[in-house]
């Protein structure tokens, strides 16, 4: 049952991802990305990591993508016109990027499988609920957590400064 659901969601995630990349209309791409995030959240639910799953919906699908949509709508980005032929240089550039992507992908898959095979089975169930995530954030990873929040604050202040300079 779980594995059937997993494959259904996986197909949806990949399909939505392709839709995002291949579509020429930016608004459709944003909607496709939201759909991909939803299915990713569903996969977290299948892993019983409810907290991570709901954060995926709340933060990525709910907040960040709304801002994406907001910006795309405000700038009124027109659908990209199909180009007659790719420039010679472009084609090499695309091939290089594709190679880099495949390399990174393979490394991630290999590393993920290794971690999956070596980590104890009991530990995986515990991760992903609110208490364990909170405890890890505020003890073991307190410093990175605080640095990340400081970075975000700096980014926020910087954005306001840049945007409001003329006022």
């Amino acid at each position: 049952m779980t594995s059937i659901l997993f494959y259904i969601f996986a197909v949806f995630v990949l399909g939505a991802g392709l839709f995002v990349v291949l579509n020429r209309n930016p608004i459709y791409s944003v909607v496709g990305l939201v759909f991909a995030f939803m299915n990713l959240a569903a996969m977290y639910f299948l892993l019983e990591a409810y907290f991570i799953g709901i954060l995926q919906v709340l933060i990525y699908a709910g907040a960040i993508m709304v801002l994406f949509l907001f910006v795309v709508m405000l700038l009124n980005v027109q659908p990209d016109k199909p180009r007659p032929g790719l420039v010679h240089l472009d084609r090499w550039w695309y091939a290089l990027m594709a190679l880099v992507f495949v390399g990174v992908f393979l490394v991630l898959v290999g590393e993920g499988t290794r971690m999956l095979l070596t980590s104890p089975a009991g530990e995986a169930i515990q991760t992903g609920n609110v208490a364990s995530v909170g405890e890890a954030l505020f003890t073991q990873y307190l410093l990175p957590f605080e640095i990340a929040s400081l970075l975000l604050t700096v980014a926020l202040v910087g954005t306001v400064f840049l945007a409001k300079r003329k006022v």
Partner: protein
Amino acid sequence: MMDTFDLLAILIKVVAVFAIILVLIIASIIAERRVAGFMQYRLGPNRVGPLGFFQPFADALKFLLKEDIIPDQVNRPLYLLAPVITMIPAFMTFAVIPFGAPLEIAGRTVALQVADLNIGVLYILALTSVGVYGLVLAGWSSGSKYPLLGGLRSSAQLISYELAMGLAIIGIIMISGGLTLTEIVAHQQATSWNFWKQPLAALIFLVAMYAETNRLPFDLTEAEQELVGGYHTEYSSFKFMMFFMSEYSNMITASAFMVCLFFGGWDIPFVDEAALGNLGVILSVLAFFAKVVGFLFLYILVRWTLPRFRYDQLMRLGWKVLLPLGLLNVFVVGLWMAVTA
């Protein structure tokens, strides 16, 4: 593991909750129009059925029979999708709300709640934030100026007030020690209603709740005098009805959420429901819905009493008043917990 009894119980609960929401939607629509008539010293709809009670059914029939106009300039796929995106989260949110004490049937306990997720509160917030897409996409895909403005306003407004709402809830989660609404209600039963402990959080939540459901005094996404109908200007017939029902469904869920967080959920003050057996369960369900109806009535009263905020006032209230107050509330609760612990 799940057996036939559990499966049947879940099915019955799903159907029952859906039916309850529909009945409440119908009741609040007619109540809104009648109360508006009463408050404005006029009659209001009173022709269909006794005292006009069947007016919503006549309206629904009218929506179904009217021509469904799709304007030429719309972006068709998204225009058709937007009402659905609005409606599905609006009806899904109620699933985690406990609406009564656990029921005892044939020696088995049935929790009166569709799904007791261990992250119930976050589930509601997540679905509310997904509901924004319906409004934004409806505004954009309609391909005309007024809906676009309505859609842009709604996305900014909903994101801003979600913050204040979240901060108000954090104070409650801190003292309850759990993210499920069942735990929050149980904690209030064991001690006292959260409203008495955190009236400031309750006030922030109440204000944010009106903004989140796009109701007056914060209905800037629709603002008839400025934007015709806001995001749903270009919608007609059944699609308009879907937006309309989502608005009322959101109001019901927001009221129920408020009752669970601050007004004891299904708790009846000074009564031990558990001692009364299944009679207590029935009373608790009635108490819960009485409270919800009370908040729906408050929605209606506020709508016909307060004028609309201006957009800059709305943003100022959200970011410069409610957000600092919410942070203050969290700080004070933390301090109090540190001192008493």
